[in-house]
């Protein structure tokens, strides 16, 4: 009896706060998506509209592409950077401190400073590339679709790659030194050591870093909203920006909730296929 009361307070109260604040409204949103603006039941009409909405599918396509590109790049890059930082003897402490700075800056502020850094006429990137003779005229970083997408990828990677570096660095430094001494004794070259010892032993970390970065990347709203607001046109519209625009800015609640439902179903599939198997590993042992 007492055990039950404790369990209610400790487990079910926190569970219910989240469930009532978030999960129930989400289900209510699914319900709302079957009605139109005047509250008339329209069945799947909103969904038919969603399925013929090319802009929304483009935004889902962009989000998935964006999430995969930044996650894969950041995971590989952060592994390589962390191995190099591990070699640094002088100034490693300084690097470890400064690495947290981009991570700690809000994506919003990061996007805003990106606007001026990537600016076509006044940006430091174009100016530097021009001076180095790498380009002949200023690139339209934020005003042409292709370049804007590249700018979005680059900004995100430069901000969050350090998060991965840090995790890999800590994991790398927890590998026993003897393994590496052994490798030197048996005559392995640095590349072999990296391939045969570092990579396999950091495998778990890589999976963890990869999934957490993927979860965050699929959420992408803040930085894109501050940097390009989804533009030019809808070239860098992520799913989140799309849903926000329809629901909050244009006031199409019902249509917006239909979009949100489709997007949550999509993520739920990923949860079953990727996130649950990866995350449950830590609990079952």
């Amino acid at each position, binding site marked *: 009896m*007492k055990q039950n009361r*404790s*369990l209610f*307070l*400790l*487990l079910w*109260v*926190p*569970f219910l*706060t*989240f469930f009532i*604040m*978030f999960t129930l*409204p*989400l289900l*209510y949103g699914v319900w*709302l998506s079957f009605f139109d603006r005047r509250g008339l039941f329209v069945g799947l009409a909103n969904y038919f509209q969603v399925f013929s909405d090319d802009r929304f599918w483009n935004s889902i396509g962009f989000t998935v592409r964006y999430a995969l590109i930044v996650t894969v790049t950041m995971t590989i890059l952060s592994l390589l*950077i962390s191995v190099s*930082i591990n*070699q*640094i*003897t002088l*100034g*490693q402490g*300084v690097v470890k401190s*400064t*690495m*947290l*700075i*981009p991570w*700690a*800056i*809000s994506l*919003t*502020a990061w996007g*805003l*400073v990106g606007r*001026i850094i990537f600016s076509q006429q*006044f940006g430091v990137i174009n*100016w530097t590339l021009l001076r180095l003779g790498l380009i002949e005229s200023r690139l339209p970083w934020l005003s042409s679709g292709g370049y804007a997408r590249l700018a979005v990828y680059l900004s995100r990677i430069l901000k969050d790659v350090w998060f991965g570096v840090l*995790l890999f660095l800590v994991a790398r430094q927890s590998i026993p030194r003897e393994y590496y001494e052994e490798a030197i004794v048996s005559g392995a070259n640095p590349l072999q050591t990296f391939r045969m010892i570092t990579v396999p032993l950091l495998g778990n*970390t890589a999976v*963890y870093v990869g999934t957490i970065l993927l*979860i965050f990347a699929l959420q992408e*709203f*803040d930085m894109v*909203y501050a940097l390009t607001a989804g533009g030019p046109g809808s070239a860098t519209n992520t799913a*989140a920006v799309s849903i*926000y625009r329809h*629901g*909050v800015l244009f006031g199409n*609640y019902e249509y917006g909730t239909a979009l*949100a439902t489709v*997007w*949550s179903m999509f993520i739920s599939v*990923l*949860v079953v296929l990727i996130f*649950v198997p990866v995350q*449950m590993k*830590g609990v079952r042992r």
Partner: protein
Amino acid sequence: MTRRTWFHQAASAVGAAIIAGITIFPLYWMLVISLLPESAVLNPRPYWIPPRDLFTVQAYVGVLIGSRFFMYMFNSVLIVTLGTTVSLILATSMSFSLAKYRVRGRTGVFYFIIWSLSLPWVVYILPIFEVVSPLGLLDTHLLMIMLYGFSGVPMFSWFALPYMIDFPDDMLDAGRIDGASGPRILAQIVTPAMKNVLTALFLLRFIWAYNDLLFSLSFTFDRAKMMLPALLELPELYGIPYARMMAGALVSIVPIIALVLAFQRNIVSGLTGRTIK
């Protein structure tokens, strides 16, 4: 020192300087832009250091005195501090019970947690809006504290779980023999023993909530208005006031950078907890 180690030290220092430079550059650039007059920002040839004849703190004056920025900042700090506290209490208690009690449907709860921490927050925005606006909760501190408080529950109970699983049972039994209830054991035995972990998680949650744009943009407009949406509103009809925007951004970042540098060790351990376990 042999020649080889000398070379290694020099290469290290250069490498460290390059990496530190890359990581600090955006912050530095914000500072440079914020100390220029608006007209000088729009210069095809960027200034690497604000020249003496152009140097001005006008942008800071504009942001801090000419707007209600302090109020927005106060709102942000207040809401995020209380929200984080709520999150941590709820998440700690949930992970403790999952780790140390026999819970029916435990695996189901785990699935629910993973599902909730993976779903993008944007899918909740519209229905929450629909539910809270008739209740008169829009644009209130209470709503924001609940949003930031409850939204952290799945992820942070998940982060705390491995530590809770490893918590020695003997220490709990001592409390149980004394007849202490679950919540008391949690408050008087577990929490003090896990102070470091909980500090780390508190900082992580604080930084993530403080840096969130989506909730604050969707649910605060005036009374409870928070800082990041206010930054985005600076653009005006005649153009984008970059210097003011950067000044505001920098002011908003300063508390977080201070926190990060002061508690660096805690934050690193909070971030890496699950990987090395």
